[in-house]
């Protein structure tokens, strides 16, 4: 598959994503500069982590006006899969492609550590085949990852099963200690109503190689690749 990894001024996990997609997962992946107006025929878009525009004003607030984001909007409207990781999640929320917003961590400090994630539904391109019993050990690294949405939105997210991942402890319980940032309902990642846009604060690309201590993050990319493959097969048929 062909992945476009967006590159904003201040992105800093862009290369990590390209490396994992290419060298670990054998896909084709390219950086897409924010001034580009098209996605170059990509099958999927990754909005990577980092500090686009220095996180000035609000995380993700400026990046969402980039020309490339207009292309992402169109792509998403046509059902193309878009995954936002960390700052990418923040950008997608700011852009209105995902519900809610990410605010300052409850601790008021940046947090870099491993967490456990529970996948709540396999009904999305990003979670196909990941069972709820299989906890993912993946790192987080952010200062503003506290997920917020108003009560009505939250209810809707629950009803529509748009919450893809929650922070849990080693026993799979979503308790307060397992929550690294104060997110409502321990939410680590959500998807859009049409399920083709998703965002999460943890970094699956940092947990995709055994030498880095965990390969659990790979499941998310593999799920997406599988989804794309079967979609291609259907389209071809």
């Amino acid at each position, binding site marked *: 598959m062909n992945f476009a990894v967006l590159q904003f001024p201040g992105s800093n996990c862009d290369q990590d994503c390209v490396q994992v997609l290419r060298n670990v997962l054998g896909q084709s992946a390219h950086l897409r500069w924010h001034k580009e107006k098209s996605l170059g025929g990509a099958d999927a878009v990754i909005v990577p982590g980092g500090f686009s525009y220095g996180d000035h*004003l*609000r995380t993700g*607030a*400026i990046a969402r*006006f980039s020309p490339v984001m207009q292309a992402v909007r169109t792509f998403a409207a046509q059902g193309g899969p878009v995954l936002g990781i960390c700052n990418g999640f923040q950008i997608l*929320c*700011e852009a209105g492609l995902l519900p*809610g*917003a990410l*605010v*300052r*961590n*409850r*601790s*008021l400090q940046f947090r870099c550590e491993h967490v456990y994630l529970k996948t709540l539904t396999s009904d999305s391109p990003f979670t196909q085949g990941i069972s709820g019993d299989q906890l993912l050990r993946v790192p987080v690294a952010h200062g503003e990852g*506290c997920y*917020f*949405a*108003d*009560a009505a939105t939250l209810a809707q997210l629950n009803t529509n099963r748009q919450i893809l991942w929650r922070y849990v402890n080693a026993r799979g319980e979503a308790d307060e200690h397992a929550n690294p940032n*104060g997110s409502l309902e321990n939410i680590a990642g959500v998807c859009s109503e049409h399920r083709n846009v998703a965002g999460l604060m943890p970094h699956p690309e940092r947990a995709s190689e055994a030498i880095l201590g965990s390969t659990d993050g790979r499941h998310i990319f593999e799920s997406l690749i599988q989804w794309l493959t079967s979609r291609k097969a259907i389209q071809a048929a």
Partner: protein
Amino acid sequence: MKAKIIVTPKKAVVDPQGKTVQQALEQMGCQGIAAVHVGKYLEVELVGHDLPAARQQLEEACHRFLSNPVIEDYKLEIE
């Protein structure tokens, strides 16, 4: 002309910074503090004199960009 914009977190959003400042003030011995809210302040220096045009531009900027309506309210003043 100068525009002053105050962006504050919505009441429903937890404001840990406000809480921390409140505690620090109390520890310093400040008394009678009911609540503290921490927001952002933006000052935009404008050239030109077309107040209504400036206001319209900035209202839009506040709404679209300078604040995030999911979590924030804003107040715009131009002088």
